[in-house]
């Protein structure tokens, strides 16, 4: 392990408009780091800079602790990238896959052997002699992946490689990707705006917004503890309830919600906060149901406003004095008779109630809405 790439003080602007302002980003050897953020957050620019394809206006990139000059060929040849709109070079599928090997002037026999292997890895053997510009999008993207992994890169950059594919091609591509990354044992920097993709591929996640890193950490940790209201929305927290910490109980903050009601948490935050709760963490029970062992202190009587079927689960909006979104499986909804107007008891665990500061950091207010849009689309 250890730090493989370190970027610091990276600033970049296009036509005077600042697109990147990265204080500090470290990529560990062998990890998969997901750069997650809405469109236009600067993710792709960051990838091109780390890939040494583009030079930043200022700042430095360190590879194995040593500063690299922009465009440094020897370091760049230890990396390879797959982009959202893959540019397929003129020629056959085979020519495209062999391209990076030929650039490195490898002996012909080695080129052939490595190319065969890469084609086989991505089930492209049969397409080797096809005109690479007459492929479906899914096939083209697999060619793009094959020609990147064929050079055995120490760093593999993936810039929304599945972003342009339909659901079936996307699933297949991501499966191939996971398998190959495991086999290659390489460091991966994966740009995506899909939370699911980030959680299923990433060891660590860095959330980027307006060219800056808003939160970074192990994938699960980021998923479970948003740093601010923007990341909370982006990470899919449906319930974000403003309130104030009024005291402490069992070592955690007690929050008085602005709309009324007290929420018990495990947080140590003070002052004005937002309580963030995922819909799937909210459970619904018949009113007056017998107390369970290890029951939570967060119990509210609620009335169902709406029940929205979506796939296998239903999404419910409840009035508990404050508005709360919950999910429930279809059989459960039927069993409990969860229809609009029904009375239920709403519970969620103290640990499910995450606190973020109420104050939205500068320049974030408009962004949150955008992040929410992204999240909704990804989850739909």
């Amino acid at each position: 392990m250890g730090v493989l790439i370190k970027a610091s003080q990276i600033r970049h602007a296009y036509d005077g408009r600042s697109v990147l302002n990265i204080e500090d980003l470290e990529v560990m050897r062998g990890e998969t780091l997901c750069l997650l953020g809405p469109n236009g957050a600067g993710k792709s620019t960051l990838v091109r800079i780390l890939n040494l394809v583009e030079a930043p206006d200022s700042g430095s990139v360190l590879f194995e602790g040593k500063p690299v000059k922009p465009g440094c060929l020897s370091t760049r040849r230890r990396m390879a990238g797959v982009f959202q709109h893959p540019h397929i070079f003129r020629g056959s599928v085979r020519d495209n896959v062999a391209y990076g090997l030929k650039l490195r002037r490898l002996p012909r026999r080695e080129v052939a052997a490595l190319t065969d292997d890469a084609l086989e890895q991505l089930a492209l053997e049969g397409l080797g002699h096809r005109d690479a510009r007459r492929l479906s999008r899914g096939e083209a993207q697999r060619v793009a992946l094959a020609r990147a992994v064929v050079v055995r890169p120490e760093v593999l950059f993936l810039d929304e490689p599945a972003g342009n594919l339909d659901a079936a091609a996307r699933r297949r591509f991501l499966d191939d990707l996971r398998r190959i990354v495991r086999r290659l044992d390489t460091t991966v920097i994966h740009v995506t705006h899909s939370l699911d993709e980030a959680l299923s591929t990433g060891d660590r996640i860095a959330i980027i917004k307006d060219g800056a890193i808003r939160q970074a950490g192990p994938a699960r940790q980021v998923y479970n503890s948003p740093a601010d209201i923007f990341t909370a929305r982006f990470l899919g927290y449906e319930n974000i309830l403003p309130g104030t910490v009024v005291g402490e109980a069992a070592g955690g903050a007690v929050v008085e919600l602005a709309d009324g009601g007290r929420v018990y948490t495990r947080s140590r935050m003070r002052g004005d906060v937002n309580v963030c709760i995922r819909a799937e963490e909210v459970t619904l029970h018949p009113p007056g149901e017998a107390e369970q062992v290890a029951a939570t202190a967060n119990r509210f009587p609620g009335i169902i406003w709406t029940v929205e079927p979506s796939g296998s689960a239903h999404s419910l909006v409840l009035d508990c004095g404050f508005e709360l979104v919950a999910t429930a499986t279809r059989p459960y909804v039927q069993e409990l008779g969860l229809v609009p107007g029904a009375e239920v008891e709403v519970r969620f665990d103290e640990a499910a109630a995450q606190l973020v500061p109420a104050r939205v950091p500068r320049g974030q207010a408009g962004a949150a809405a955008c992040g929410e849009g992204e999240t909704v689309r990804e989850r739909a």
Partner: protein
Amino acid sequence: MLRESVSEAVRLLLTDAEVWSIILRSLLVSGTAVLMAGLVGIPLGVVIGMHRFRGRGPLVSVINTGMALPPVVVGLVVFMLLSRSGPLGSLGLLYSKQAMVVAQLVLAVPLVLGITVSGVSSVPREALTQARSLGASWLQTALVAVSEARVLLLVAIVAGMGRVIAEVGAVMMVGGNITGETQVMTTAIMEEVRKGNFAPALALGIILLTIAFAANGLMARLEQRTIDT
């Protein structure tokens, strides 16, 4: 008269060595000029087309203006440079094929350069980014640009040839239209018409037209291919 001239022109084309020596000289002079223009204009055009730098816009404007340089002005300038009292007078090149090549080179370079720049500029950025990402050096990236823009590079050469072979002002001025030495198709046509010999003028005219027609046809086909791919 026209019918007689045409049949005489055809007869000349089939039998006359003098007419063919003029045609070959024309092709040699213009071909050399365009080849050299390609050697200068294409690499330079690729460099300008691939990079974004300060002053690029004005530079491209200058090149595009150069595409419309009046041949007589180019002829005048080259004449003044090569004339005995000019800065390059000691080379003794005035009224030689070399002088004509120089003049046509000056005419062809901006055209080749301008079309190359616009062709390479229109290569999608993703192509170059992708090549660099897979480990292409600067030169290897430039080769990708050339490969992507190859049809327009051919168009540049064909357009250059079409321009210089049909041009009369510059070659007349610096070549002097010396029979058997620096007489090319366009200058020969002028002289024959002035003398009232329409048949040889028409014979050369037919060849010039054929070349222009072939060049334009080729360009149209090439441009169609750019659209297709």
